[in-house]
């Protein structure tokens, strides 16, 4: 099996790696680059815990090959805060207790960031359908939806 | 003398009896005497038995005293989520 050399940008930084042709972007992020914020909940695109943004598109990194990242711009949870300044969504998730076990949280935050980038004033229904690709088993989603609503208000005001 | 009621699967260990009179000052003594009188209780005690004293369930406090006249129930130890 021949390794594929990849040059890509992750959270603004140029990153180069060698990966196997069948290795997923999630495996590359977690096992090669030490970016374990994206989680594998299913490996089949059904839970959203591995969500990242590739060239402004929200994707499941378990359904992207590492080799496909060549020349792309990738955003992960590790790049969401600016230094020690949390993103408003991160802050609101904390304030609303929108996480219990927290394993789905990185995926939800990335998905919510993508949602608000495309729709800064979503209705409750738009938030619910926009985040339907992310499974949470702890919260019943109530506090997650409220945190996103609150963050949207803060971000519009900013 | 405390009257002890055995519930659920425990009465089988006492030969089908569901009420026993046992002289015991605390849970430890109660378990010891139970095991002496009914050897079938020993593995059950090892596995864990809960004791309800006047409605409050104790799982592990063997030093808990049995107040005179208290209502005492022995229940199987449960699993939780």
């Amino acid at each position, binding site marked *: 099996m*021949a390794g594929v050399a990849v040059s890509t940008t992750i959270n603004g930084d140029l990153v180069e790696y060698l990966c196997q*042709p069948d290795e997923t972007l999630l495996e590359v992020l977690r096992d090669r680059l030490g970016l374990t914020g994206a989680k594998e909940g299913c490996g089949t695109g059904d839970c959203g815990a591995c969500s990242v943004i590739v060239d402004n598109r929200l994707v499941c990194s*378990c*359904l992207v*090959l590492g080799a496909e990242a060549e020349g792309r711009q990738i955003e992960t949870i590790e790049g969401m805060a600016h230094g020690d300044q949390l993103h408003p969504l991160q802050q609101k998730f904390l304030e609303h207790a929108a996480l219990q076990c927290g394993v789905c949280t990185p995926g939800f935050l990335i998905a919510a960031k993508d949602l608000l980038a495309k729709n800064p004033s979503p209705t409750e229904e738009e938030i619910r359908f926009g985040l*339907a*690709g992310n499974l949470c088993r702890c919260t019943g989603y109530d506090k997650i939806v409220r945190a996103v609503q609150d963050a949207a208000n803060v971000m519009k005001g900013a | 003398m405390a009257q002890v009621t055995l519930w659920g699967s425990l009465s089988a260990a006492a030969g089908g009896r569901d009420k026993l009179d046992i002289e015991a000052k605390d849970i430890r003594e109660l378990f010891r005497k139970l095991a002496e009188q009914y050897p079938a209780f020993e593995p059950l005690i090892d596995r864990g038995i809960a004791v309800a004293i006047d409605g409050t369930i104790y799982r592990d406090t063997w030093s808990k005293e049995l107040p005179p006249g208290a209502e005492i129930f022995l229940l199987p130890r449960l699993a939780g989520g």
Partner: protein
Amino acid sequence: MRYIRPLSIEDAVGQLAGAVGPAAILAGGSDLLVRMKGGFIEPELIVDIKAIAGLSDITETADGFRIGAAVPCAVLGENAALKKAWPGVVEAAKLIGSKQVQGRCTIVGNLCNASPAADSVPALVAAAAKAVVAGPSGKRTIAVEAVPTGPGRTSLAKGEIIEAILLDKRAPHAGDAYQRFIPRTEMDIAVVSAGVNLTIDEAGVIKAARVALGAAAPTVLLVEEAAEVLTGRKPDEATLERLAKVCSGACRPIDDKRGTIEFRRKVAGVLAKRVATTAYQRAGGK
């Protein structure tokens, strides 16, 4: 295992035709990677077609629309002209998977995965869409319903790639729609589905109709008899009831983890009624 990213369709076709072991085409990967993960396929060659010129574009031509094989379904929804002309096709494509999957999955992939429950296929069949096939012996254009031949099987030969889907230019007073039944509100595979495409006259009478059902048989069903029920009529209650009956009768479903035979039969008819009503309204009928 090799991963390649050819720049031309000819190169891609050549690589696929010359592959020694099993080869797989990668566009969105939302089916391929799941199958690889499950160990159902171990390709020797993965051909990523996203760098091929033109395959990632939607172009509006004199004849209609050409949707490249690598266009993610999310992009279909962002194309105002396509959405206006073929709202049923777009809404079907937008039902596949989650937002995350939408950013990757393609209607060609959906078609070639050849699942009888594929969401976009009944809508494409109802829309009389065509597939442009490039292969070692040149190009050919076929009806989309000719692509899947059974669950997981297609009529494509070794080395062939579908490079685009063609949709006709829209006639006036025409509309299409698609609905599926799923137990949840999102993230499920269709238990049964229906796509309807209608053209009406000035008086609101249906001139032409195509009705397709998904997850109702080994491949998507084009129900000619259902089209006959609608043609020459308005979708009044009696017509819709007949449509439902014909659609239920046309189903040849199975019992599986997603639904029962009885359920699929019954709901296929219910959906056909609802979808025909929406398509009629979109065509301008009242």
